[in-house]
């Protein structure tokens, strides 16, 4: 009798072990999806890009500035001017966003009363929540006319406008991660510095910011990754001229904007169509490298902290 009971107990235990394993497997499948999606994006972009290079020379694609896929005489597929435009607008954005973002982060971590911080942090989150298409719209109606007026230009849809908007969009990232890394600097550093007679300002500039530098660099790189991949704001605010950019007051067309403009009109399964996916692949690789670099810097920094 008792052996029978223990047998059913063992059976029940076995069944529940199978059930547990199945549940774990189910959650695992969901967890591994992220890897599948990332590889899928890369794989499908690569697969769709390859046919473009039956007609286009890879060297010409990356090295030529002439992009004219619909030319009746000779179609040209050079994306150099778009790459340069993307970097021009991004660097401009960083030049604006780094000092301001770092300033706000330092103010919040070292100067502001905690109550101010409690109010400002959600407000910065609001800025992060504004959709990019709305930011682009405001570039057209606010910053465009302002830039045209200040610099005496016929219109303000140029690289500078895009940089200003991208700076605003990357600020929340730069502020929050820089502030976190400033707060993570051990209190002992600041105390030692102040104990030697340094002012709070000297401590901030010469001790805390250097100590938090790797976190700040990671913040800047993540902001940069966002700026490179941003589509709607640059599409709406930079004018989208196809020429090679020569200055910040010029209308430029970035990689993202070019995809957005041309994908809607291009016939499927033409070289032009495949070439647009190849631009997407280049974009994916650039942002991947930038994000990985930021990730490595951030991990190293966190390991050292622990």
């Amino acid at each position, binding site marked *: 009798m008792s052996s029978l009971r223990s047998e059913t107990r063992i059976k029940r235990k076995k069944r529940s072990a199978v*059930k*547990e394993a199945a*549940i774990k497997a189910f*959650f*695992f499948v*969901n*967890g591994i*999806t992220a890897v599948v*999606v*990332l590889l*899928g994006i890369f794989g*499908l972009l690569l697969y*769709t890009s390859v046919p473009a290079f039956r007609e286009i020379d890879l060297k010409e694609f990356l090295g030529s500035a002439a992009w004219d896929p619909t030319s009746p005489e000779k179609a040209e597929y050079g994306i150099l001017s778009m790459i340069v435009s993307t970097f021009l607008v991004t660097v401009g954005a960083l030049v604006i966003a780094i*000092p*301001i973002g770092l*300033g*706000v982060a*330092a*103010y919040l971590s070292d100067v502001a009363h905690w109550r101010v911080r409690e109010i*400002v942090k959600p*407000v*910065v989150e*609001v*800025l992060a*929540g*504004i*959709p*990019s*298409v*709305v930011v*682009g*719209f*405001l570039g*057209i*109606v*606010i910053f465009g006319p302002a830039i045209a007026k200040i610099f005496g230009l016929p219109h303000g849809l140029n690289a500078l406008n895009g940089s200003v908007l991208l700076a605003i969009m990357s*600020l929340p990232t730069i*502020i929050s991660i820089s502030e976190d890394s400033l707060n993570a600097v051990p209190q002992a550093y600041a105390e030692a510095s102040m104990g030697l007679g340094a*002012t*709070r*300002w*000297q401590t901030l500039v010469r001790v805390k910011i250097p100590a938090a530098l790797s976190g700040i660099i990671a913040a800047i790189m*993540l902001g940069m*990754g966002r700026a*490179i*991949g*941003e*589509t*709607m704001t640059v599409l*709406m605010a930079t004018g989208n001229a196809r020429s090679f950019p020569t200055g910040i007051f010029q209308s430029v067309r970035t990689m*993202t904007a070019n995809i957005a403009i041309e*994908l*809607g009109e291009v016939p499927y399964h033409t070289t032009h169509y495949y070439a647009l996916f190849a631009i*997407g692949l280049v*974009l994916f690789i650039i*942002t*991947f490298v*930038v*994000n*990985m670099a930021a990730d490595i810097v951030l991990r190293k920094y966190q390991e050292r902290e622990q």
Partner: protein
Amino acid sequence: MKRKFIQFLGFMLLRTCLYLVLAVLLLFLYDIIRKGGGAISWEFLTQAPRRGMTEGGIFPAIVGTFLVTMITAVLAVPMGMFAAIYLNEYARQTWLTRLIRLAIRNLSGVPSIVYGLFGVILFVNIFAFGTSVLSAGLTLGLLTLPWTITASEEALKTVPDSYREGALALGATKWQSIRTNVLPYAVPGMLTGTVLGLARAAGETAPIMFTGAAFFLPVLPKSLGDQFMALPYHLYIMATQHHNILKVRPLAYGTALVLIALVLGMNMAAVVIRYRLRRKRRI
């Protein structure tokens, strides 16, 4: 004395940076509310666009954005929660776990237009869903997935280990302990995070441009296989693609106001839930 003066100037400079950022945000909100407020009326919210989109409202765009966000939620919310449960409750520190985390961090940095391209190949062409609510919603779902995973995991991390251990000590299996002792405490926090992710998805334009959003469509989509109008895409069109941009500027402002109210409203709802939750915990 001099050092104090430099400190004073330095802090002033930092404060100016903050004021500058706040001023830009206020300028944004003020401009949109002032100029968009005039366009808002009952008709604007409940009618379809008329006369080549120079009159009428944005009702189909509101419905379209609502529908597509629903599809996004159906994909991204449960998957995000399940993935987070795996990472926080089951996964050990192996190379595979590190790879999954790496993939999640990288996915959240993939440009939105690249998700759009991916959606065109996978959902529109390979799965043959065509340009539709379904394709656009699934594309946005994949875009939102890394955010919902991260947010859900944050919520799971706040549940103390003693809750899990208590159940296990009483002989509960791992799943029983998660179901009865972890999830009831984590699910509200998970929802807060996922609502934030969905708000961001609702405002995205680039991923839906080529996977289902329509330039102009006065009728509502009848099934998931139909094209749809969406608020962000409608704003893009009214701001740059319309044949008479200056004439429709007030309508563009109205659309921007509705979009921003929707997105920030969802944000605020999430923040309020989080705040309430924290207060409840403390007691």
